[in-house]
C-alpha cells in the first residue's frame, strides 16, 4: 500500500538522486561515528566527561550506537550481503528513524553542552563534526524515495515485509538469547546512568525511542515476537535469566535498589492488570492492598516497633500472612462494592484507598487502638533470613559480591516470576475468559451462565493477594513501613494513580505492558532529577499523548489493537484474506 509508485520514479523530500541520498546517509553516519572518538568539549564539567580523544564516553557512546545503527541501515540500502536480515523489506523508514536518532542525540548533546557551559565556545571540533555529520545523514535519509504521501508513512511499519527465512531451532534460540542479552545491556545501561547526569539519560531516551522505533519499522520486532511464540518457555526463561543477571551486570547497591523497587511496582501493576485489564474493573484504591501486605509482614517481622514485637514469622509464613490479609481485605471491600458498575466502583475503591491510609494513620494508640504506630510507621524491620541466607549481608557468588539490595532483587524476581505465571495461566483459562467476557459485556456474560459477582470477586481477591505478596517483600526492602506512600496520587511511586498509569501506559491485558510501564514511570523521574517536581504534570501529559496516538498502550494486546485501530487497513487484516496464523503472531508482538 504505502510502497513505491511504479509509474513515476518517487523522489524524496529533498531533491537528490537516490544513489547520492544513500551515499549521504552512509557518509553522515561515518562522520558521526568518527566524531564520537574526538573531544566534544574542553572541560570535564559536562556530565560524562567528553574531553578524551579515542575513547567515547557518556553521550558519545550513545551517539556511537546511533551512528552505527544508521550506517548499518544505510548499508542495507546498498544491498550489502549479510545485512538483509536487518531490513528485510529494504524500507526507507528504519533508515530515516535511525538517522533521526543520531541527529537527535548529536544535536541534543551539542545544545546541552552549549547551554550548560554557557556558550558555543565550549564546543570542541568533535561536537561540530557530530552535529554536521548527523545532519548530513538525516538530509540524505530525507532525500531517499518517499515511502508515501503523508508524514505518517515515514514512521509506520511498511506492509510488504517478507516473512523470515526459517532458521534451525538452535539458531532461533540463539537469536532469542542474543536479543534478550541486548535488552539486558540496554536496560542496565539506562539504570546505570548517574542520576546527576540527566543529560546523558535524556540522550539515552532519545536513542532508545528512535532506535527501537527504527527496528520496529524494519519489522524486526515482529520477527522476534514470532520466534518467541515458537519458543515460549525458552523465551520466558531467557527473559528471567537476563533479569537475574542484572545485579551482576550492574553491580552497585543504589541501582540494585532501583531494580528492586521497579520489580515491586511492576509486580503490583501486573496484579492490578488482572482487575483493570482483564476484568475491566476500574480500581483506584489498589495501592491499599500493597499497604495491607506490607503492614502485615511488618507486624510479624519481629521489629521492636511492631505491636507484636515478640513475634517473628519465618518468611514463607509472613508471605502467606501478607497475602491472606490482602485477600481478606479484597473480599471485604469487593463483596459490597462489586455489585456496582463502572464509575461507581471507581469512586468507591478510591474511597477505600484513602480510608486505608487514614485508618493506618489513626491506629496509633491515641486516636484509636494501637496497631500500626500511626504516622511513624513500623521501622527497623529486620532483614530476611531464609535457610540461613541472610539478605542483609553481602554474599560472594562467582567473584561477584551481591549486596543487600541485590539479594532482595533476586527474591523479588522470583515473586515476579510467580505473579507472571499466575497471570498468564489464569488469563488463558475458563476463569480468565469469563473475566474478559465480563469486561466486554456483562449482561451477555451472565446470560452465558457466568456468575458475574463471583467471578469479579475472584479477580479482585486475586489481584489484592498478589499486591499483598509484593508488599511483604517491599516492607523488608525498605526497612520500614509508614502510611504516607499508600495514597491515590503522589510524587513517591507506589500510589494508585502511578500503578494505574503503568498499566494503561504499558498496555492493558498484557504481561509485558505493565512491567514496561512501571519500569518507565519509575526510572524516568529517578534519572531525570529536574523532573521530580513536575512528575504528576509529566504523567498527565504522557497519558494524554498516549491516549491520542496509541490508546492501546505501548505494548498492545492483539485484541485491543484491533479494537482501537479498526479503520486502519494495516491492522484490519482478517478481511484482506491473509492467513490467520501470521496475524496472531505479528500482532502479538507489536
Amino acid at each position, binding site marked *: 500500500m504505502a510502497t513505491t509508485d511504479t509509474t513515476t520514479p518517487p523522489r524524496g523530500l529533498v531533491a537528490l538522486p537516490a544513489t547520492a541520498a544513500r551515499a549521504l546517509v552512509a557518509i553522515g553516519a561515518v562522520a558521526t561515528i568518527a566524531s564520537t572518538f574526538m573531544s566534544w568539549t574542553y572541560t570535564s564539567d559536562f556530565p560524562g566527561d567528553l574531553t578524551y580523544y579515542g575513547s567515547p564516553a557518556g553521550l558519545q557512546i550513545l551517539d556511537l550506537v546511533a551512528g552505527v545503527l544508521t550506517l548499518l541501515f544505510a548499508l542495507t540500502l546498498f544491498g550489502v550481503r549479510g545485512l538483509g536480515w536487518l531490513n528485510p523489506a529494504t524500507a526507507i523508514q528504519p533508515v530515516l528513524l535511525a538517522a533521526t536518532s543520531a541527529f537527535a542525540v548529536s544535536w541534543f548533546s551539542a545544545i546541552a553542552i552549549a547551554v550548560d557551559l554557557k556558550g558555543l565556545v565550549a564546543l570542541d571540533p568533535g561536537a561540530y563534526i557530530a552535529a554536521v555529520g548527523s545532519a548530513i545523514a538525516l538530509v540524505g535519509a530525507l532525500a531517499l524515495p518517499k515511502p508515501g504521501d503523508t508524514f505518517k508513512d515515514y514512521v509506520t511499519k511498511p506492509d510488504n515485509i517478507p516473512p523470515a527465512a526459517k532458521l534451525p531451532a538452535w539458531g532461533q534460540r540463539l537469536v532469542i538469547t542474543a536479543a534478550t542479552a541486548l535488552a539486558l545491556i540496554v536496560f542496565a545501561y539506562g539504570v546505570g546512568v548517574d542520576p546527576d547526569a540527566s543529560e546523558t539519560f535524556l540522550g539515552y531516551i532519545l536513542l532508545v525511542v528512535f532506535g527501537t522505533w527504527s527496528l520496529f519499522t524494519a519489522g524486526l520486532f515482529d520477527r522476534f515476537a514470532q520466534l518467541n511464540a515458537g519458543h515460549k518457555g525458552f523465551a520466558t526463561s531467557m527473559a528471567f535469566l537476563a533479569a537475574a543477571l542484572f545485579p551482576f551486570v550492574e553491580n552497585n547497591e543504589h541501582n540494585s535498589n532501583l531494580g528492586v523497587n521497579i520489580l515491586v511496582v511492576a509486580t503490583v501493576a501486573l496484579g492490578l492488570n488482572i482487575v483493570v485489564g482483564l476484568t475491566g474493573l476500574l480500581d483506584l484504591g489498589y495501592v491499599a492492598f500493597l499497604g495491607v501486605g506490607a503492614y502485615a509482614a511488618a507486624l510479624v517481622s519481629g521489629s521492636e516497633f511492631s505491636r507484636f514485637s515478640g513475634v517473628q514469622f519465618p518468611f514463607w509464613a509472613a508471605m502467606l500472612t501478607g497475602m491472606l490479609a490482602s485477600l481478606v481485605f479484597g473480599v471485604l471491600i469487593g463483596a459490597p462494592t462489586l455489585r456496582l458498575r463502572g464509575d461507581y466502583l471507581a469512586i468507591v475503591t478510591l474511597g477505600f484507598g484513602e480510608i486505608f491510609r487514614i485508618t493506618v494513620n489513626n491506629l496509633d494508640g491515641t486516636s484509636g487502638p494501637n496497631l500500626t504506630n500511626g504516622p511513624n510507621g513500623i521501622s527497623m524491620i529486620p532483614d530476611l533470613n531464609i535457610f540461613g541466607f541472610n539478605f542483609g549481608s553481602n554474599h560472594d557468588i562467582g567473584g561477584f559480591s551481591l549486596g543487600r539490595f541485590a539479594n532482595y532483587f533476586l527474591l523479588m524476581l522470583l515473586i515476579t516470576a510467580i505473579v507472571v505465571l499466575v497471570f498468564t495461566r489464569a488469563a488463558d483459562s475458563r476463569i480468565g*475468559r469469563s473475566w474478559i467476557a465480563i469486561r*466486554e459485556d456483562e449482561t451477555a456474560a451472565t446470560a452465558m*451462565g*457466568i*456468575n458475574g459477582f463471583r467471578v469479579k470477586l475472584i479477580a479482585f481477591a486475586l489481584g489484592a493477594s498478589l499486591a499483598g505478596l509484593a508488599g511483604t517483600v517491599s516492607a523488608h526492602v525498605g526497612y520500614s513501613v509508614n502510611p504516607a506512600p499508600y495514597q491515590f496520587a503522589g510524587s513517591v511511586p507506589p500510589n494508585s494513580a502511578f500503578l494505574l498509569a503503568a498499566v494503561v501506559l504499558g498496555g492493558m491485558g498484557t504481561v509485558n505492558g505493565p512491567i514496561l510501564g512501571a519500569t518507565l514511570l519509575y526510572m524516568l523521574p529517578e534519572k531525570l532529577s529536574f523532573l521530580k517536581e513536575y512528575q504528576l504534570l509529566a504523567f498527565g501529559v504522557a497519558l494524554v499523548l498516549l491516549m491520542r496516538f496509541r490508546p492501546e498502550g505501548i505494548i498492545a494486546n492483539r*485484541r485491543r489493537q484491533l479494537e482501537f485501530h479498526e479503520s486502519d487497513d494495516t491492522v484490519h487484516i482478517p478481511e484482506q484474506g491473509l492467513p490467520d496464523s501470521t496475524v496472531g503472531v505479528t500482532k502479538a508482538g507489536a
Partner: protein
Amino acid sequence: MTTTTAPSPVLEATGVTMRFGGLTAVRNVDLTVNAGEIVGLIGPNGAGKTTFFNCLTGLYVPTEGKVAYKGTVLPPKPHLVTDAGIARTFQNIRLFANMTVLENVLVGRHTRTKEGLWSAILRGPGFRKAEAASRERAMELLEFIGLAHKADHLSRNLPYGEQRKLEIARAMASEPGLLLLDEPTAGMNPQETRATEDLVFAIRDRGIAVLVIEHDMRFIFNLSDRVACLVQGEKLVEGTSEVVQGDERVIAAYLGEPFEGAPEDTAAAAVEAAEAHATEGDDQ
C-alpha cells in the same frame, strides 16, 4: 414438520406479569414449550415479546407468575437459568466483540465446565483434559454453524449474518434443553433467512426445543409447530400456523380493525400485507 408423540413440557410459564412502575409490559401470559418443539412468538412492536424473554431468562424478575424448566421453578438469576438449561440470543447482537470466535463459544461452555482458579494455575492433567474437551466441543459447534474456518477471527470482524450465527453457537455451547432466539433473522436477506430456517430445524433435530421471536411472518409460520401472538402484553391467541394466520384479532392487531362485512378474500390479502409490513418493520 414433525410433531411430538408424547408432549413433555420443557418450559412452563404460568401467569407471567411484568410491571415497570405503572406500566404493565407483560400481563398474565401462559406459555408452554414441549420437548422437540419449535414455538414462535409474534406480536407488533412494543407488544412485550422481549420483556417476556427477559422474564424467562432471569434478566427481569417477573412481578407475578412463575417460570419452570422441566418441572423445576427457575430462580430469577440469568446465570442460574443458563445453568438449568435455557440459553438465549439477543435482539441486538451482544457478542464479546474483542474475543475470538472460538473464545466466544468457549465462554458459552462456562456452565458445563468446572475448572476454577486453582486448577487454572496448577494446570494439572484434569485441567488440560477439560480444556481440550471444551475446545473440541466448541469447534464441533462452529462446524455445525459453518464458522470453523474463522475460529481465530475477532468476533467483531465477522459480517452481520455470521455474528448472528455465532451468537446461536455460543448459546448452544451451554448444552441447553431450550434455546430462546430473539429475532434471529432481523436484518437478513431472504437467502440468509432461509439458511437460518434450516439452522433452526437442525437445532431442533439435535433435541433442543426452540422458542423464537420473529417479525418475518413467512419465516415464523414455516418454522413453528405452534405460534403465540402477544399484543400489548397479553397473549391474544396460540395455535398452529393456520389458526394464528386466520385469526382476525391477529390481523386486527397488525393492521387495525377491518370494516364490517368485508369480503372473505380481504382477510388473505391482509395477511400478506401484514407480512410485507412486518418485513419492512425489521429495519427499525
